[in-house]
């Protein structure tokens, strides 16, 4: 019975610890307020390790305080010579063996999670079937992020959309220096390397929301400005978003006249680096759904003023060292206004970050997306003899490494 109450006490202490920690930081950013499986697994490991370590710390501190209070030199002790103790086998064995046991307790879940967090094999559902996997190829560049949805013909930058309650698998690589992909609320970070290994990891979100992502590996002057967002929407909304995104017509004329003029400015000055739609061009960020972005350049408040200033100054001050500063264009004030208007009108999908915050949940098993994918793949293999599919198959093999 006594053992049981002490167990309850231990669990209670752990829960209080968890509660204190969860008070720390913002819901969209803090690793202590997990919103997905990965981050909550890690948090439970953190709490276990903190608990074990607190035990050690308390033992040390109790002895420490006692020793300082009890054995301080007192008056009249000038000639007192303490016993010169050599050591104690019992005590020394005790504080060797107990830490070993504590570490073993910690090592078991550590190894378990070390494997499970990077396990990108398909999930098995209740019927024992392997689920179809959503794979996204992530590219990190100074100082922005690019996302290509494998087999879905969807390309976007800076904001990655994912369905809730389902793992999304990422395959990451860099085109310049080392970056690191980190969404603290959803999953631990993983490096984005320019050579060698192409890293893989999964993320998932338990509920809808816009979660902040950061670059965690030092990558240059604007390292601290290399933010991105994960927009988690319900599966039905995600399905809708994918369908809208793959049917973008970059030639489509915007509604307003200013924006139409801006479209031409864009075509003449920006298209060589920035794609609209599913073009593989990723010299600069893809602008397909620029109108729905949460932030400009990942960090600036989303408004026309900031956008125009960015385009005019090429972000020289706003994101020091960014690669757009090498672009050759020179736009008049009128053209700036037009192109900004055009970019802000780009909203090909009804699904925007607002849908991540409206609590509306639309069910879907997403199977539609994979049927299309299989068809796409069939087309791909049929057309293999044709010249222009070579690039595609090369990309496929790349991501399978």
């Amino acid at each position, binding site marked *: 019975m006594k053992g049981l109450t002490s167990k309850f006490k231990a669990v209670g202490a752990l829960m209080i610890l968890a509660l204190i920690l969860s008070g720390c930081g913002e819901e969209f950013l803090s690793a202590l307020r997990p919103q997905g499986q990965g981050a909550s697994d890690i948090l439970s490991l953190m709490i276990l390790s903190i608990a074990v370590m607190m035990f050690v710390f308390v033992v040390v501190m109790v002895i*420490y305080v006692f020793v300082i209070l009890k054995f301080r030199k007192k008056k009249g002790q000038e000639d007192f010579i303490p016993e010169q103790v050599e050591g104690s086998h019992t005590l020394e064995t005790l504080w060797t063996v107990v830490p070993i046991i504590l570490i073993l307790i910690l090592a078991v879940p550590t190894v378990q999670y070390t494997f499970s967090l990077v396990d990108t094999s398909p999930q098995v559902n209740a019927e024992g079937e392997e689920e179809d996997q959503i794979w996204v190829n992530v590219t990190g560049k100074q100082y922005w992020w690019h996302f290509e949805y494998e087999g879905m013909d969807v390309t976007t930058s800076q904001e990655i959309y994912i369905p809730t309650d389902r793992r999304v698998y990422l395959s990451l690589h860099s085109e310049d220096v080392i970056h690191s992909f980190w969404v603290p609320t959803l999953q631990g970070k993983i490096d984005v390397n320019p050579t060698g290994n192409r890293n893989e990891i999964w993320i998932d979100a338990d509920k809808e929301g816009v979660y902040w992502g950061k670059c965690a590996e030092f990558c240059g002057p604007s390292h601290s400005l290399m933010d991105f967002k994960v927009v988690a929407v319900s599966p039905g909304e995600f399905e809708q978003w994918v369908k809208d995104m793959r049917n973008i017509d970059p030639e489509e004329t915007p509604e307003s006249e200013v924006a139409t003029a801006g479209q031409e400015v864009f075509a003449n000055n920006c298209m060589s680096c920035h794609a609209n739609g599913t073009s593989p061009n990723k010299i600069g960020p893809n602008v397909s759904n620029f109108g729905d972005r949460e932030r400009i350049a990942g960090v600036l408040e989303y408004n026309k003023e900031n956008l125009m200033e960015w385009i005019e100054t090429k972000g020289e001050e706003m994101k020091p060292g960014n690669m757009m500063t090498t672009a050759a264009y020179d736009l008049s004030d009128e053209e700036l206004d037009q192109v900004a208007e055009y970019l802000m009108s780009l909203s090909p999908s009804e699904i925007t970050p607002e849908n991540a915050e409206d609590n509306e949940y639309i069910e879907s098993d997403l199977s539609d997306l994979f049927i299309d994918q299989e068809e796409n793949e069939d087309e791909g293999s049929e057309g293999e003899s044709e010249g222009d599919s070579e690039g595609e198959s090369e990309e496929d093999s790349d991501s399978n490494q």
Partner: protein
Amino acid sequence: MSATATKKAGFGSVLWDYLTTVDHKKIAILYLIGGFFFFILGGLEAMLVRIQLIQPDNNFVSAQFYNELITMHGTTMIFLAAMPLLLALMNIAMPLQIGARDVAFPFVNALGFWLFLIGGIVLNISWFTGGAPDAGWTAYTPLSIFSEGHGLDYYSIGLQIAGFGTLMGGINFLVTVITMRAPGMTMMRMPLFSWTTFIASVLILFAFPALTVGLFLLTFDRLFGANFFDPSMGGNVVIWEHLFWIFGHPEVYILILPAFGVFSEVIPTFSKKRLFGYSSMVFATVLIAFLGFMVWAHHMFTVGLGPIANSIFAIATMAIAVPTGIKIFNWLFTMWGGTLRFTSPMLFALGFIPSFTIGGMTGVMLGAAAADFQYHDTYFVIAHFHYVIVGGTVFGIFAGLIYWWPKMFGKVLNEKMNHWFFWLFFIGFHLTFFLQHFLGLMGMPRRYWVFLEGQGLDLFNFISTIGAFFMAAGTILFMYNIVWTAMKEPKASGDPWDGRTLEWAVSSPPPHYNFKQLPLVRGLDPLWIEKTEGNGKMQPAEPLGDIHMPNNTIIPLIMSIGLGIAGMGIIYQVDNPMWWIVAVIGFIIFFGSMAVRSLKDDLGHHIHKEDLEKEGDGSNG
């Protein structure tokens, strides 16, 4: 050459004496001056970093300058402040503790110091020639390859030169400990600080070559068109990370083990008890050093080494906690039953125990590979390593400096001011770094020039900056104390702390030959044994005779300057081939002085028996 003789000499001759000295005690003072200068410089860089982060979206310094500041703060503090300050302690204490008259190779000892100083100066010249290195103290490729300007060239050349110096120091101490112990001073009677010096030297010997190789590859990539790390040419960027951390992880044990040694001297002295579990302390030190080479990849858990490698390195990392825990408990039980005197070195030792325990706890947490996916490269890591390096190494350095200050300068630093210094520094340290653990978990990655508003990071960053000012205030007080003590404090006796080990058996500062007659060591804590069982003085192990001592020489300084000039030539030859002339001149000076040293016999000098008899007994009065 006692203290009174130098006092009468003019400034010029004192300066010349120090420029040419091969005496380990004077080299210790040189290391102290050099190391402390860079400590202040690195501290100033840290203050600028903290001011930049006092509020969100701050624009106190530019992004580029910020990156130079963080890079130079890390590089300076590790290579140019902590290492030389520890070498200062090793130089002053270790030869005395083992009962030697000097280190095994006094010439190499001087050369090691001058190489460190020239390397540090070369590195810092970059501030004035178009920008300091900006790729972080880890200089991860390919960022360091793509970095513009010459900053990273200064990094690779400067550290290479300073690294040669450290490597020589390490080898020198190894030979000294192995061959020059006094009669009766067996390995297992050696004071713990000498043990940790010995083990740290082993680590230096095996770890620094990895850095040397890495820096050579980096130099060749940047200056001679090699492509070891350039991904577009088939280079592999992860190799640099391995090389850097195969050096870098043992390096943190090189920094912490001597600090452990200092505490293992300070705590017994001020508890009036012998070190509890001496042999397990030695064993734990050796084990930490051994495991220290097995864990470098825990800096690379997120690189993508795969779960098998990550698990192995995770468990190896956690295992280090066991010997470290043994040490903590041994210190606690050394104090148990003693009579504690709260002198300022003891305060630093007492401040160290909880601080370092927290650092060790977060170390185990970081070692849990899966959880490291969240901690890695965040302020949690910043907090962790400042808890071990400041809470461990820097506290150890201050404890050791204050403890051995009388051996270096013949005066005890003012205790009252040192108490104030301790409390300012201790409180400031926890204020600065404790909350950074939480900042990291709340989503703040490290090396962030700005953090945005509305992320809930403002308050903790503000508090952290305030804490940094406390630490700065404490350090300024310490500097004031140094000057005040030099002018106002009375001369100290040879044994002002009621010490237990051999360095307290000679006068403060000791004569330049240390021991008139080598002492006979009868057990652990030899002076304590003589105090309790004998007449309080060391018994001589040899009759009074002539003492053979090395001559002073300017060659180490000239050699180092030559290498520094050659380094500058190599950095700039990419801009203009005429710089090759400078490089060649530098190498001629370097190899020329080497040749002079090798070809010209310098047999040293003898201090004659008759002169020794005149000088009194040389022990503490």
